């Protein structure tokens, strides 16, 4: 059931909200360092799949295995700890803490994992440099542009040295030039650090930065690599 060599694998996930089936037998897997684009129509279950994979919501049935461990067998506390240590997140917007400066935001995952302030901010600045936003360190999220804010968010997702980054429409609020730049920086950084990326997007130009694509339709995922 678990594809060989995969880092994160889900099998036959089902999730229903009231009478709405959001996932209806979805399976999915990603290898270490692999960038997988998840595409499909609005309401087909992409975000639900991503939230299940990341342990943010629990499916009604089905299995999710991360690095040989069954997610549903973990306690809530264990799952939260796993999210902090091994996962990074980038969403469309609204993910940075408005009260903190950009560098404090990027350093946050490290601080939550017990790294001391000076060391955390030094690492944070290195990531901000790679994402070309190191000059924004002392600004707050409200004082930077949308594209800059997304780069800060990507730097934050990478700063905690995750094994998997979950990105739900990370370029959704950006124009195509900025969106592509963010994708280029995200995928280059992820590949060089061997971080897997689960990328939900409806934009083909964004999905073209992936290694492989999966289509979600009516709560079911189809691996397009083996489709023909």
């Amino acid at each position, binding site marked *: 059931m678990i594809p060989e060599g995969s880092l994160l694998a889900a099998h036959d996930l089902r999730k229903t909200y009231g009478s709405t089936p959001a996932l209806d037998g979805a399976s999915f897997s990603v290898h270490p360092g692999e960038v997988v684009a998840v*595409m499909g*129509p609005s309401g087909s279950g992409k975000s639900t799949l991503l939230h299940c994979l990341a342990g943010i919501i629990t499916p009604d049935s089905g299995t999710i295995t991360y690095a040989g461990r069954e997610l549903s067998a973990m306690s809530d506390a264990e799952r939260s700890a796993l999210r902090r240590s091994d996962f990074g997140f980038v969403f469309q917007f609204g993910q940075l803490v408005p009260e903190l400066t950009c560098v404090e935001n990027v350093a946050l995952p490290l601080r939550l994992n017990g790294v001391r302030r000076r060391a955390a901010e030094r690492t944070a600045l290195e990531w901000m440099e790679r994402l070309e936003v190191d000059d924004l360190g002392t600004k707050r999220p409200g004082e930077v542009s949308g594209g800059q804010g997304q780069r800060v968010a990507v730097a934050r997702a990478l700063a905690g040295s995750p094994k998997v980054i979950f990105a739900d429409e990370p370029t959704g609020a950006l124009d195509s030039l900025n969106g592509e730049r963010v994708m280029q920086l995200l995928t280059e950084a992820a590949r060089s650090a061997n971080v897997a990326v689960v990328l939900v997007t409806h934009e*083909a130009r964004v999905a*073209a*930065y992936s290694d492989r694509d999966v*289509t979600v*339709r009516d709560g079911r995922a*189809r691996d397009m690599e083996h*489709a*023909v």
Partner: protein
Amino acid sequence: MSIGHTLLGLLESGPRHGYDLKRTFDEKFGQDRPLHYGQVYSTMSRLLKNGLVEVDGVESEGGPERKRYAITDAGITDVSHWLAQPEKPEPYLQSTLYTKVVLALLTGRSAADLLDTQRSAHLRMMRVLTDRKRQGDLADQLICDHALFHLEADLRWLELTSARLDQLAKVVAP
């Protein structure tokens, strides 16, 4: 676009005379370029020779002989292969894709799967171009971007069609 496959696909929904095939083709796909009778008959004799159709009956009420053609099992397999095989992504393929979608609907195959497969073929091509763009100089980038925008326009059409399949099914296969 492959006229042979299109006529075969039309035959899959039932045996027809050559005249009937031409009329149905023109009605569904031939708005700007109707078929000549000669094309229909030369295509049919090729399909006969290859065992993809067979003559199902001959009528000759008064006038000349009229053959009725039926698709064979080999013909059905041939249509399946053609529909399942994505087209090479390139600008201006809409008419072939549209034909495939309509035939899938007419013959009860999954048009949604066909569109997904095509989208993935487009995406693979876009990945190659994106990679080239990433490694290239400004000229490479601009050339690749031009191709990428065209492919993206195709993809929008695929999305739109995929969202309207139920509607289209009612129109083409009532």
